[in-house]
């Protein structure tokens, strides 16, 4: 993918003399005066630590410049091979399983999460299996799958 823009960042690592930890101070450009640097450090320091230390001198520990090439955003949906998804919910279904909810057994549909089609609507109870976890959709809850592979679960009682 082509580089659309270049970004140049100048950052100072600074501290008050006597400290061991550093604070990063981004600079708007590379030609600031001593006073401007002092002001930038003190203002960032105050934002982070809620304190001004006028009694103590500041020092620069290191200076760095980063040049970053910006590329166009990646469409995450493109990372999912289209043929890995089933055409319908039924195609992603692995079967049914009895699950104990609130004092009774309920038949819940069992799905292969990787195969769920985009933009489909599920109602609980359902069990979504994937390689590294299992997602339980409780009765009363519903779920929606989006193009990027997210599952948005709506809790039954939630507003």
């Amino acid at each position: 993918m082509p580089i659309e823009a270049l970004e140049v960042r100048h950052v100072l690592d600074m501290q008050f003399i006597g400290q061991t930890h550093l604070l990063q101070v981004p600079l708007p450009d590379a030609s600031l005066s001593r006073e401007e640097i002092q002001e930038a450090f003190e203002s960032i320091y105050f934002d982070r630590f809620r304190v001004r230390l006028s009694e103590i001198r500041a020092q620069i520990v290191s200076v760095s410049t980063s040049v970053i090439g910006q590329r166009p955003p990646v469409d995450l949906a493109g990372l999912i091979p289209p043929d890995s998804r089933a055409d319908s919910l039924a195609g992603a279904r692995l079967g049914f399983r009895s699950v104990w909810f609130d004092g009774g057994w309920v038949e819940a549909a069992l799905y292969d999460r990787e195969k769920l089609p985009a933009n489909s609507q599920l109602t609980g109870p359902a069990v979504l299996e994937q390689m590294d976890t299992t997602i339980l959709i409780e009765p009363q809850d519903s779920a929606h799958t989006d193009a990027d592979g997210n599952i948005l679960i709506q809790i039954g009682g939630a507003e």
Partner: protein
Amino acid sequence: MSLDPISLSVIQAGLQQVCDEMDLSFSRAAFSPVIAEANDRSDGIYAAADGALIAQGAGGLPVFVGTMQYSTRELIRLIDEGEAAAPQPGDIYIVNDPYLGGTHLMDVRFVRPYYRQGKLWCWLSNTGHWPDTGGAVPGGFSASATAVEQEGLRLPPVKLFKKGEMDREIYAIICSNIRVADQRIGDVRAQAAALEVGADRLDQLLDRYGDEMVAEAIAELRGRAASQMKQLINQLPDGCWKSVAFVDSDGVVNEPLEIHLAITKQTDRLIFDFVGSSPPCRGPMNSVLATTLSSVYLAIRHIFPEVPISAGAFEPLEIIRPSGTFLDAHYPRPVSGCAAEVSQRIAEAVFAALVQVLPDRVTAAPAGTSGNFALGGHNAERGRDFVMYQLSGGGYGGYADGDGLSNGCSTIGISKAPPVEIMEQAFPVLYHRYALHEGSAGAGRMRGGFGLDYELELRNGSARASFVMDHGRFGPQGVLGGKDGGVNRVVVHRGGETYVPEHLSKEQDIELAPGDRVHVATPGGGGYGNPLERPPQAVLEDVRLGRYSVAEAESLYGVVISGGPDTPEIDQPATDRLRAAQPG
């Protein structure tokens, strides 16, 4: 309950986050390595009415878990009695009085009232270990003080900040009574600012979820912690378990101090009785009540880490006040060893009692000393005075499923040892060695961890060295047939002579000149189970890595190793014979 579990969990994490941010701000903004690098500090949120612990930063020093709720409670009492000034928004009290819910004088607490709509809603408090608060020796760890006045400046709760402004007059009094005062302002600002950061974050949390909902969550979390702890206790069989732990000496009288503990389980409560422990001592190894209580809490927290920290977790623990013993010292008993050393012996007593009934949860005794080494003097090259602290790790106890960790932090701490490079930059010292304390791990089926072994040299100027450590006389206890860990050793090489402190682990004011060296080896952890049951392969591995000698493998484990230093191997027939010949 109107709170749903997700909101409860989010608010719990939110309160935790407020405390963690206070911890982090404090360390990152601090100047003293003891706070900035060793993290000897803690931050928390406490109930408005009684100071009960609501939440505490995960990165805080564990021994402060219990103590800050007692110091906040004492402050509330003093305000009610008119002995301390009533709070106003923007105020910060400073207090380090050990007898008012404290530890030692160097642990300086800041307490800030937090308001919502003009009403006191809770207290934010933090403790930071100041490198010096005056007294007989730099660093405050006077090993031979006989009264608290010799240990440093004692502050009752006074407002160091009034309506957001620091009181320069109080600050001037403090600065006139402590060493290297010119370097203190940065830490004071950092400690106060951490509470400001906490107030900001708490504002955001309350604005988002509403004061009532957060208050409800706090009450719910406290109740849940209490019932979770009760359930865990309930699973133990009824009974009473006893233990004894020893402090080397009090630093003045060279006799061991004894902690006798009997823990009784009654349905869903544990009762802790220290009857029979030594009386208050002359030297600084006395503990104040808040530190004693906190030590029991932190030991229980080591055993049941799944119970979140809040006042509720401690409700099922009943600690009978150990009146008349050195675990409940009153003014003017010296106390500088209580937070760092006696606390760990108390925890060791709790472990040694409960390992009998919870062998799968409790370890053999850990090194159990903070290894405080303070060096104070004059840096001739830079033309200024300095106070340096070295806190050290030691070996942990072996446990049912594994060997103890080597060079782990103290039982009561989460302090990191400051990096050697930082120490050499900040102070006129050179480290010649920084290694594992070979041979120190207590032998066992699961062995203890190894302690630390370091040696440093004073480079220029002059300095006085003080040590407050422990386990120099008796190693950390092994359990269930395991052996004790190796003892703590202090050796000073000065002017061509070798000097070992009379009290072994405690001494103050040893004069050092450039070229003199201090050599410290910290204790190893106790072993767990019979060492003869340790797989010979595991013993060989330690020998191969140089942690045990061939002779130790044989005498401690009955494992005979042949093949020379480069290719050590197990002599199985000789090992079988040796192990068969030893009693069980």
